[in-house]
């Protein structure tokens, strides 16, 4: 039974998905269901002068049409920013009103204006074409760097500036720079991305007119948080009469954290018409209205001594929030970003400013990695540039500056508990056969290809997060996690977690932990998540937190089960609780051969008395039942780290870049299931490669999203990748008893810098992401390549 932890077990959840039995929100159909279709703004910025839905109301099948006026009248609250940032002058960030249906103005293409509810989807869609919205179109701003000089788009928010954030000691940093032998400077753009979970968002509101209970089925990463926000801020329905079910969810990547207008509106509409209201996004709606990610413009500087030692760092970033501020929109480019710019280097002085600006684009928010890919991109690009400029080998340069003693208090925020950065870099250098790279470069050259190599030695702060810390810096909630372990009378176990699995494999990983902990067969353990009516309140899944925080809550609940079990076993075995050992599912009385299985103890807990063969009176003061709950609030973040080494080949004639070799060595602390962890890394790297080489959300001058389908938004496909090599080193986390650090975002955090450093190494000059063939070709031409010019 033991040793499930660390085993490459096949996933418990796979069979249903493989046989077509997954149950996603769009698969749910309720009796008497109606269909919603949203009228969205075709303009990036406009005043709404009139919404005339009289024709739509008369169209066949239409049940009702709701507009900004309807929701205002019924006092439905707007969407919120859940984590407020304070500017360096002490002023709170500025958030514009964000109604769930626009009333006076629209601020990006796809902004929700009205909803038509009809008997069929086709009828709703037909009638939506009849909703006549009169717009007074205004000039729009889309570019991050243009925002502060553009006219005010939200009344009262001057210069379109939401916040002007500063982290670090500017004086100390200036002093360090004054002592530098060399200052390395870098301007970078972090491209805007669209998360593109394969399952489009979907929501079904189901109001029960008899019980006054409202159920919302929605594709969400955090159903309890959704319910809290929708009750407390959107005033949709009181929390105790409101159930949110987030069934199988087809990928999240941050895009399913937010409470979206559609969630609120279908819930509201269902209450208004007394019938279920179903909405499923078309992919074009996902492109337009899911939260986007990244979109930074940054200037970075690194102060060096001649021997290659880094003595200071300055970073100035403008972050595009889009049209409104979503739930984690402000924390993503500030606290999830700025502290991370130091990377894994011992940098004694640093400061980082971030201006959060509004534009007429889709709102941005957390996208896999959230802040940390942006930070890693800054530090890993500038470190590579610095090594080149002072003529040091890039591995040596990194090693010279690595943090080597732990715990290490960084000069900005984080206190890193554990790590061994030389260990994973050395292993990666070996696996990637770094010493023979120049041979490979010459071989590529013989084929007419330019080969480049790139490094990214990253770290991240995850396992979000200590509640006291995050709340002191603006979080509207604590980020603890809950678990309830229910031992059933027949000996199987139901585990309720407040986290949510939308691909992360919790059903298997958590079952492995519980199986080892309680000595129960894995097939007798069920992991339950995604339903506010089932388990205790939990915070959901994002920020690579599920195992480190949610897993720990499960471990702690299991410990409580064992502690109670010992008391019951002591009574049954006629010993003292302190003389009972628990091992591999058995309670054993020390120095005897007397023992009881955990199944027998569970049974006894539910039959606390004596009749016939059953003789299991509970000890005095012990309550019947065997159910334990735990809420775990971590003492610190966890700090996974690792080394990625990437090699690319660039076609000199066309500029086309091909990924040819990719090596990863990660330190995730304790790994529960290596197969699952590797899957997270493969997928994470693919998304990072996507950002570096392919993906770009593009708005034209007028604010139209010109990359609003898979015809124009380049998704990485199977033929874009070679086999990726993965290995591990391990320094356990000290902030949780499992020793886990988190693995879900690492690939996406590290990969963009590794790939771009390789492309730049191949081409010989700077290129912005994504490194499209044309951009590379232009750079080659500029560098005097005859083949590119021919």
């Amino acid at each position, binding site marked *: 039974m033991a040793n499930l932890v660390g085993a490459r077990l096949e996933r418990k959840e796979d069979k249903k998905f493989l046989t077509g039995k997954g149950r996603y929100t769009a698969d749910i159909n309720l009796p008497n269901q109606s269909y919603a279709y949203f009228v969205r703004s075709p303009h990036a910025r406009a005043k709404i002068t009139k919404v005339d839905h009289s024709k739509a109301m008369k169209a066949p099948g239409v049940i009702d049409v709701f507009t900004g006026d309807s929701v205002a009248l019924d006092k439905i609250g707007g969407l919120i920013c859940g984590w407020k940032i304070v500017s360096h002058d002490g002023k709170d960030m500025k958030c514009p009103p964000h109604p769930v249906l626009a009333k006076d103005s629209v601020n990006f293409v796809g902004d929700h204006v009205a909803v038509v509810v009809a008997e069929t989807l*086709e009828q709703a869609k037909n009638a939506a074409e009849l909703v006549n919205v009169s717009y007074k179109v205004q000039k729009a701003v889309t570019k991050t760097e243009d925002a502060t000089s553009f006219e005010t788009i939200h009344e009262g928010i001057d210069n379109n500036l939401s916040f002007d954030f500063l982290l670090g000691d500017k004086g100390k940093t200036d002093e360090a720079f004054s002592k530098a032998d060399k200052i390395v400077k870098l301007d970078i753009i972090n491209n805007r991305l669209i998360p593109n979970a394969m399952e489009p968002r979907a929501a079904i509101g189901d109001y029960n007119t008899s019980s006054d209970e409202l159920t919302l089925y929605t594709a969400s990463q955090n159903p309890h948080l959704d319910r809290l926000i929708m009750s407390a801020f959107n005033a949709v329905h009181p929390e105790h009469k409101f159930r949110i079910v987030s069934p199988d969810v087809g990928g999240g990547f941050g895009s399913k954290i937010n409470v979206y207008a559609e969630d609120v509106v279908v819930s509201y509409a269902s209450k208004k018409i007394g019938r279920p209201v179903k909405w499923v996004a078309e992919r074009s709606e996902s492109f337009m209205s899911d939260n986007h990610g990244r979109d930074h413009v940054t200037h970075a500087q690194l102060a060096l001594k001649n021997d290659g030692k880094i003595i200071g760092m300055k970073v100035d970033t403008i972050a595009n929030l889009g049209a409104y501020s979503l739930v984690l929109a402000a924390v993503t480019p500030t606290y999830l970003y700025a502290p991370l710019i130091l990377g894994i280097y011992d940098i004694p002085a640093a400061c980082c400013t971030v201006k959060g600006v509004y534009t007429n684009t889709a709102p941005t928010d957390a996208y896999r990695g959230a802040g940390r890919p942006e930070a890693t991109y800054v530090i890993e690009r500038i470190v590579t540039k610095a090594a080149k400029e002072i003529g040091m080998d890039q591995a040596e340069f990194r090693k010279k500056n690595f943090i080597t003693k732990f715990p290490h208090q960084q000069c900005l925020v984080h206190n890193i508990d554990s790590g061994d950065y030389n260990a994973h870099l050395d292993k990666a250098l070996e696996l990637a056969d770094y010493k023979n790279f120049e041979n490979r470069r010459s071989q590529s050259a013989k084929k007419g290809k330019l080969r480049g190599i790139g490094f990214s030695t990253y770290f991240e702060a995850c396992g979000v997060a200590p509640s006291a810390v995050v709340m002191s810096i603006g979080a509207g909630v604590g980020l603890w996690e809950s678990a309830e372990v229910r031992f059933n009378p027949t000996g199987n176990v139901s585990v309720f977690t407040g986290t949510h699995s939308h691909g992360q494999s919790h059903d298997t990983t958590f079952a492995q932990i519980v199986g080892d902990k309680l000595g129960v067969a894995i097939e007798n353990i069920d992991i339950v998540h995604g339903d506010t009516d089932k388990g205790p309140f939990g915070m959901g899944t994002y920020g690579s937190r599920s195992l480190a925080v949610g897993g720990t809550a499960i471990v702690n609940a299991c410990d409580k089960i064992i502690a109670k079990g010992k008391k019951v076993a002591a009574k049954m075995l006629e010993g003292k609780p302190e003389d009972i050992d628990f091992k591999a599912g058995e309670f054993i009385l020390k120095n005897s051969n007397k023992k009881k299985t955990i199944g027998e103890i569970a049974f006894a807990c539910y039959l606390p008395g004596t009749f016939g063969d059953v003789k299991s009176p509970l000890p005095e003061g012990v309550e019947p039942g065997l159910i334990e709950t735990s809420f775990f609030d971590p003492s610190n973040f966890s700090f996974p780290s690792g080394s990625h080494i990437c090699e690319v080949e660039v076609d000199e004639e066309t500029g086309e870049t091909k990924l040819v070799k990719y090596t990863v060595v990660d330190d995730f602390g304790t790994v529960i299931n290596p197969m699952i962890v590797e899957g997270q890394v493969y997928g994470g790297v693919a998304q990072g490669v996507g950002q570096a080489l392919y993906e770009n959300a593009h708005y034209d001058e007028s604010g139209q999203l010109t990359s609003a389908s898979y*015809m*124009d938004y380049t*998704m990485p496909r199977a033929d874009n990748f070679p086999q990726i090599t993965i290995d591990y080193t391990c320094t356990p986390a000290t902030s949780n008893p499992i020793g886990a650090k988190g693995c879900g975002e690492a690939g996406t955090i590290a990969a963009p810098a590794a790939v771009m450093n390789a492309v730049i190494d191949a081409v010989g000059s700077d290129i912005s992401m994504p490194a499209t063939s*044309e951009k590379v070709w232009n750079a080659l031409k500029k560098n005097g390549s005859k083949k590119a010019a021919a």
Partner: protein
Amino acid sequence: MKSFNFKSATNSKDAAKLATGRATYLAGGMTLLPAMKLRLAAYSDLINIKKIKGLSGIKVSSKSIRIGSTTTHAEVAASKEVGKSIPSLSMLAEGIGDPQVRNRGTIGGSIANNDPAADYPSACLALNATIHTNKRKILSDKFFTGMFETELKKGELIETIEFEVPEKSAYAKFPNPASRYALVGVYVAKLKKEVRVAVTGAGSSVFRSKELESVLSKNFSASAIENVNITSKGLNSDIHASPEYRAHIIKVMARKAVSSC
């Protein structure tokens, strides 16, 4: 999709009769149906032509290959006769869309739709194809009249496409990274009487490159292309490529095609 009537025709005459008003023909539907789903197009009637006998199939002679209009890309790609007689044409078919599109999409549909980035129109121009309709024969040089526009009249139905068998030929495609349509595709053919070079993806519609044809007529080799100046004037500009880049890629693909002939 907005509602419409679906009707199946069993012969070309019936099909033509049904194709009145706001009706259109449906073969593979690989472009038509997505356009209708996105409400970019609407029709009162879709006339299914896949049940018309004789519209599907491949006939090979020493001088030409005739491909029925409802023949799928997968069928063309898998045809041993096509592979033997015009290997570049099989390769082109093998590279259209993805396997599922190739299983459904048809040559007639591709040509009638004349997407500026579709592959088949370039084969038609380069291989001096004749498009046989239920009414007449149209030379490919006359057929493609503009973006998504052809010489086809209302109700006119493509029956077969007849390609001249070249001495040598090759198609080189530089795909759009997102859609995998041609960002630039160059089809080079050395025919009995002439050299033809057709370019797709780069302009508002497929076109023949006079510059490339003129140098390759004199010297059918990759090196002959080195000094050709491909003008970027009039070439497409979008988020994936500028006219200048497309002009450059035309040259690179032309070289690649000629080299692999």
